[in-house]
């Protein structure tokens, strides 16, 4: 009985999933096709010799800036632990993630806000 219900769930899950894939709307299908073509275009790109250098430089700068921001005391007064700060840096510097580097102005501005400096732990309890 138990095995039968397990098999039913496995089978039904596959069926429902397949149906949902088959019923994807045209717009989503089109976007997925474009995504595939963009990925395949990578095959035609010559290997970027030293192409990683600007990124590495940017990542180092970002690490320094974010590190200074996190360890400068703005976060350390509250419950923002060193571990969390390191984890945040790691996230911010994750591979292929340039958005955060582009937001450094924002973080610099955030740091300069008096109300931010006045808070005990501005990032506490936010998930």
């Amino acid at each position, binding site marked *: 009985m138990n095995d039968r*219900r*397990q098999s039913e*769930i*496995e089978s*039904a*899950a*596959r*069926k*429902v*999933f397949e*149906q*949902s*894939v*088959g*019923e*994807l*709307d*045209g*717009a*989503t*299908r089109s*976007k*997925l*096709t474009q*995504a*595939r073509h*963009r*990925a*395949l275009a*990578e*095959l035609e790109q010559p290997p970027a010799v030293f192409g990683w250098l600007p990124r590495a430089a940017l990542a180092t700068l970002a690490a320094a800036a974010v590190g200074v921001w996190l360890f400068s005391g703005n976060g350390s007064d509250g419950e923002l632990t060193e571990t969390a700060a390191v984890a*945040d840096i790691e*996230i*911010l510097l*994750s591979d*292929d*993630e340039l958005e*955060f580097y582009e937001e450094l102005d924002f973080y610099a501005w*955030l740091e300069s806000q008096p109300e*931010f400096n006045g808070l005990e732990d*501005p*990032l506490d*309890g*936010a*998930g």
Partner: protein
Amino acid sequence: MISTVLTDDCMNLNVEDGATGAQHLDGFLRSIEGRAYRITMMTVRDADEALDIVQEAMIKLVRRYGKRPSSEWPPLFYRILQNRTRDWHRRQNVRRKVINFFGRDEATNEEVIANAPGPVSDDPLGQLERDAAMASLETALGELPDRQREAFVLRNLEGMDVKQTAVAMGCSDGSVKTHYSRAIQRLRERLGDHWP
């Protein structure tokens, strides 16, 4: 399932020739793109973000593993996809911290749903039932711990064997079996006796 979607010619091919490699990669990506999108949507629940994650995973697979034997692509692709999805959730948490500091509201799921194109069907009642069944499954899967969900999705929905799943999840065969068994147990409890 991947194994049935990919032809025998495509499997175990050591891709050397550019044109042939592109064709095989195209075939592989075509076979998994819709499924990858659906799987990503289960946890991300944002169409644009899910599309971005799938595209990033495709690009990374092509860039780094396009020359690998095609039999290795499924577990590699899903490993990349899982990592990208996990990274996305972690970055969301960091961003939420900043956003909450300013008391700004994030886009709600309702907005995403409202903006999503409606389904096209000649059988609206059947469509509703299928949608409800899928929604229940998505909800139940969404409530599983990450590793259990991954094991169930890869083993059952993607049809990978234990070894492929272990590669995709970056764990041992035994762990895959344990996660899968617990996932099934929880899904049974969550979905009840009458689903779908």
